[in-house]
């Protein structure tokens, strides 16, 4: 579904992505992990076209997406830190995005309901707590029933109940055949929702494997131990 070929990106002298090539297929939850500054967010922003790669190619369904914009109607994006116009109300933000994406046939308001956003929809975005902003981000990401979901540390800042709601939503959407990319640091959570793990270190892919394979290779019961083992001992597939 998404094919990334030889992607390079540097910010000035800092190499953020080095020759990243990977393919993601639908109906999977892929978790992108790696130390801070490994290029996880940059990779997802490249797919979204927010960051423009220096070289390489990103294709969705065989079509190059670099420099295009229409393909983003198939992507729902939940940023790490949702930044919204401060003096707009929740209702206005949601209405605006719906207005912009009028052509979307199906509108999924499940998360708006589950997070009770309707009850607080007159609040200004600037007055919201970090967690509530994350709820708005999540609701917007899932709203237009996109085929691809990119969630950047989705549960960071959410309370446990809200995080549970989000996780079950992720699994539900996966069953509907969607591709979901999650960057996260919380291994227990990845174990719950993800099928595959893509590990980035210093901008290159360290490994990309399914969770059962990973555990079998390292002979560890828990994902966090398995990942730690690979990181410490180096990986030899």
């Amino acid at each position: 579904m998404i094919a990334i070929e030889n992607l390079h990106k540097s910010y000035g002298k800092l190499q953020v992505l080095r020759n990243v090539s990977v393919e993601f297929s639908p109906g999977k939850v892929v978790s992108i992990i790696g130390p801070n500054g490994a290029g996880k967010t940059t990779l997802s922003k490249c797919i979204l076209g927010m960051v423009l790669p220096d070289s390489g190619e990103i294709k969705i369904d065989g079509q190059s997406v670099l420099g295009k914009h229409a393909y983003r109607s198939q992507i729902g994006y939940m940023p790490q830190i949702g930044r919204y116009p401060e003096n707009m109300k929740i209702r206005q933000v949601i209405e605006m995005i719906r207005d912009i994406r009028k052509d979307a046939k199906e509108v999924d308001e499940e998360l708006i309901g589950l997070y009770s956003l309707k009850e607080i929809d007159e609040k200004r975005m600037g007055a919201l707590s970090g967690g509530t902003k994350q709820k708005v981000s999540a609701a917007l990401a899932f709203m237009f029933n996109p085929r691809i979901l990119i969630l950047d540390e989705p549960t960071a800042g959410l309370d446990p109940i809200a995080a549970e709601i989000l996780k079950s939503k992720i699994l539900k959407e996966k069953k509907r055949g969607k591709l979901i990319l999650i960057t996260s640091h919380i291994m227990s959570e990845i174990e719950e929702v993800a099928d595959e793990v893509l590990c980035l270190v210093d901008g290159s892919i360290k490994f990309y494997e399914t969770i059962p394979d990973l555990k079998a290779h390292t002979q560890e019961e828990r994902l966090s131990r398995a990942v730690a083992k690979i990181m410490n001992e180096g990986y030899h597939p």
Partner: protein
Amino acid sequence: MNKIIKYVLLDIIKSKIIIAYTLFLLLLSIGLFNLGGSPDKGILSLLNLVLLTVPLISIVFATTHFYNSYEFMELLVSQPINRTKIFMSEYLAVALSLSVAFLVGVGIPVAVFGAGLTGFYLVLTGVFITFIFVAMAFLASVITRDKAKGIGIALMLWFYFALIYDGIVLFILYAFGDYPLEYATLAMTVLNPVDLGRIIVLLNLDVSALMGYTGALYKSIFGSVWGITAAFGLLLLWALIPVLSSRRIFSRRDL
């Protein structure tokens, strides 16, 4: 595109700065027309104040607006919308709202106090200057990500065009006073939109008779329909160049 302009406009109106700006211009123009006696004198003093304040307020307001709407643009960039569309909507919304403020604040008093063609040129020049300085503000904002730096660059631009440039021109005129400088001054005028605007309005007032030989040359050029059209064409160019270059930078950078 219209949709995005609508939302940006709503945001601008909410900030109330535009309303304060309109009232400021309105008070200024009504006051000057009442003080001056004849409408021509009113126009002349209004011209000097407008050419100082309109660029300053346009450039500062547009730069702060650009940085404050960073979040808004980020939100839109992840939606299926073209980046150039987002950028142009921001530009048009800011430039249009400032222009409307100017039309209400200066245009209405000019029409009421009956200043004729010169008044019309003053209003038109003001609108052009607004579009030009909003464009420069956007250029300053896309060059750097740092808000303080962006506002600094914007203020430097205003300083240069509104104050320093005239100093440089005067210095050149003084230093090379022994040479015929008519065409050189003409070229120097074209290189500063504020001066260009000033000349357009001044030459339609009687005071141009006091400007000597250079004034006569200017009058022969800007006095004709062709000259005025060319002058406004140049002002248009002054707006287009920064807009198009900043649009280009904006569509090719990381957000």
